[in-house]
């Protein structure tokens, strides 16, 4: 836990938010996931704006509570976390570091939404996060959470999650 000393600044709040992980994919933070849209600091008041990944994702309420707790624990008493729907979240907002961490965690990161295959609704070429082979196939459009699909690797035969491109 980091106690803040001195004035609260946006940079410091962002440092703290780096400690708040996605409860379902604890390898990456809410910042790396791209759900934090804005951080506003007015004197000792902090307003964090987040956007949901999937409309029904139960992790959103947990993220909101975790953000509040992290900031409260650091000594910021006046915290408000608000949700906005627009513009709609896209997997393009997952940072480059976030994508690398997903892969290291065993989840194939999403391709870019402007990938021509994604635009045409075709299946992307997904690299196995375990062995790196591109000889992979989709088992199911839906996976263990709202944001993932289920794939398998034909080379190392391991199944793996893929972060759906949205």
């Amino acid at each position, binding site marked *: 836990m980091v106690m803040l000393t001195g004035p609260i600044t946006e940079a410091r709040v962002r440092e703290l938010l780096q400690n708040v992980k996605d409860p379902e994919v604890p390898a990456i933070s809410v910042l790396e996931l791209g759900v934090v849209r804005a951080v506003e600091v007015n004197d000792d008041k902090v307003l964090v704006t987040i956007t*949901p990944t*999937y*409309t*029904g*994702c*139960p992790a959103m309420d947990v993220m909101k509570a975790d953000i509040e707790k992290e900031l409260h624990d650091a000594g910021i008493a006046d915290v408000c976390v608000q949700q*906005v*729907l*627009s*513009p*709609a*979240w*896209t997997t393009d907002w997952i940072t480059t570091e976030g994508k690398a961490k997903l892969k290291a965690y065993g989840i194939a990161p999403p391709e870019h939404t402007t990938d021509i295959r994604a635009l045409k*609704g075709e299946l992307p070429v997904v690299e196995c996060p375990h062995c790196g082979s591109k000889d992979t196939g989709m*088992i*199911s*459009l*839906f*996976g*263990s959470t*709202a944001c993932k699909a*289920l794939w398998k690797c034909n080379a190392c035969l391991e199944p793996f999650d893929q972060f*759906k491109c*949205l």
Partner: protein
Amino acid sequence: MSQQEALFTYCLRQADDLLILSHRLSEWCGHGPVLEEDIALTNRALDHIGEARNLLTYAGQVEGKGRTEDDLAFLRAERQFVNTKLVEQPNGDYAFTIVRSFLFDAYHLPLAEALTKSSDTQLAAIAGKAVKEAQYHLRHSSDWLKRFGDGTEESHRRAQAALDALWTFTGELFVQDDLHQGLVKAGIAPDLNAIKASFDATVDNVLAEATLKRPVDGFMASGGRQGKHGENMGFILAEMQYLQRAYPGAKW
């Protein structure tokens, strides 16, 4: 009816379609034919309930009487639900569940796309979020329908039977009553004739690939949008609302 009242009802119409379909899909939890499909249907149920929650919350704000999403979901009576009869139909076999979702998806996707251009910014924002999920849903139900139709004799027979049985419930999706027409004029709701054209194109394309026959338009069921439901609706609400009815205000 004021525009505010019309908008409130319009939000409920969309929300109730999603809420009731979500409830039906959630009934498959633990009963899916294969694990992946069990997961797929519950994922879809989650997406639908997410959109329904946004719409119910907004409906409560538009109404301005302090009703929350939970009040509207759990404390309305059957006659106050304005979903179409399509979504309240029981699950049947897997072909029936897939066809029911396919018909809904083929309507829901162009509707969500059109609503992103609504003059009502909150409806547009909710639709902007839903449209990405709706594309995914349509892909899932279309894939299965093609597999059933172009699969074995038995899967083809069941898919065609489901289509024939459910077709009568598709008409209601595109009925434009005075309330709807008023909202079209205000730029809030899209013209359902355009949505119907897109629905027809999707249905024709997928059915052709699935080697299934499009049923001939005949008698079309109606009444759901006015709160007049079939005998299934009461059972759905009895289960869905039980906890809040038995223990008002219960939280966990």
